[in-house]
């Protein structure tokens, strides 16, 4: 009897370990090693070199000294379409003050289709072709639109996910234009994020909890 009880306890411990590792592996499978998680304000924006729709190589660090609105979007994302005319206006309004708007198209389609769509919307800022690498570097950008506001010093001053109000966008642009903080090392910032329990109020990318529906086959976000 004693032996059976020990076996039972060992099994329970093993299964609990399995549950924990299942969660960890699932997260690792979905996200890989995240570089930007939680509150990213004050973190140095990861540099990238991406190809624009007109074939130019565009490097983020070339815009040091300017405020950058970095918008991840896709042609299949109707909410993204709502923001783009705002960005065009803001580029016109604040371009001389040092604002640079960069769109990163996360489509898996031909650049010509993306260009046609952007032209139809009157996009007046560079549209870059997104890659898995840039998505990973910016914290696995899965939820579109996602916009990073980067200060003149290359640090992120705000991050917005999902469609918000135009005035929120403009406020973040002003914040980026007025930012003059010194860059923070990403690792230092991550350590700080780990100690904080709450993520940015505007960051809605946290994975939702399991659905109560009876599940047979799942397609996960």
């Amino acid at each position, binding site marked *: 009897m004693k032996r059976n009880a020990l076996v039972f306890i060992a099994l329970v411990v093993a299964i609990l370990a399995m549950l924990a590792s299942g969660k960890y592996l699932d997260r690792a499978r979905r996200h890989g090693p995240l570089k930007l998680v939680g509150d990213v304000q004050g973190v140095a924006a990861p540099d990238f070199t991406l190809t624009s729709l007109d074939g130019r190589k565009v490097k983020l660090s070339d815009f040091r000294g300017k405020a950058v609105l970095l918008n991840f979007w896709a042609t299949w994302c*109707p909410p993204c379409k709502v923001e783009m005319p705002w960005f065009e206006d803001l580029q016109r309004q604040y371009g001389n003050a040092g604002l640079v708007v960069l769109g990163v198209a996360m489509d898996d389609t031909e650049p010509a289709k993306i260009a046609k769509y952007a032209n139809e919307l009157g996009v007046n800022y560079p549209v870059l072709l997104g890659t898995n690498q840039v998505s990973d570097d910016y914290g696995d950008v899965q*939820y579109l639109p996602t916009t990073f506001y980067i200060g003149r010093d290359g640090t992120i001053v705000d991050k917005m996910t999902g469609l918000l109000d135009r005035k929120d966008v403009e406020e973040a642009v002003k914040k980026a234009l007025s930012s003059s903080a010194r860059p923070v090392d990403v690792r230092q910032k991550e350590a700080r994020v780990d100690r904080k329990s709450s993520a940015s109020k505007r960051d809605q990318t946290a994975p939702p909890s399991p659905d109560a529906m009876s599940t047979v086959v*799942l*397609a996960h976000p």
Partner: protein
Amino acid sequence: MASDDAAGCRTMKYILTRAMGVLLLAGFVSAQNAGDKPFVIMAPVGNVKVRAGATKDVPMDFRIGSEFHINSHTPKSPLLIPTALKLNPPPQVTVADVKYPAGEDQSFPFSPDEKLNVYSGDFSIDALLKVPANTPAGAYPVKGELRFQACDRSACYPPHSLPVQFQVTVLK
């Protein structure tokens, strides 16, 4: 006394075995769900029985998570990604037709003036299977996937694929 102990041990072993099974299942289910709310789930199709030389309509029932919607099979813009079922049956079974439900025209807070043709809640797709007369009796697995692209009320997620699998039993 000795036989009482033996009976007690057997009972304990039985309880432990059942408890282990339940816990293993719980572990598996939890690992499958960890931290995620699924966009779309599928009800089991069950074993599809069809006589050789006949056709069979196979309904597949799906449920979309309460805060999501997905494009219908015929969205209003060619840029939007349509929901599509792709089945890869074995050579003994052919897919003669796939019937999609009509989507519902809905507007969303992100674009109140524009209507999108979407599925939300529960929907069903029918696949018409055809089995040639010379097909030997037996079980034939059919695999495939439902491709869709989901959005919620303020943002959209990249296209996803949901695995679809069922078995066709051909009778003589």
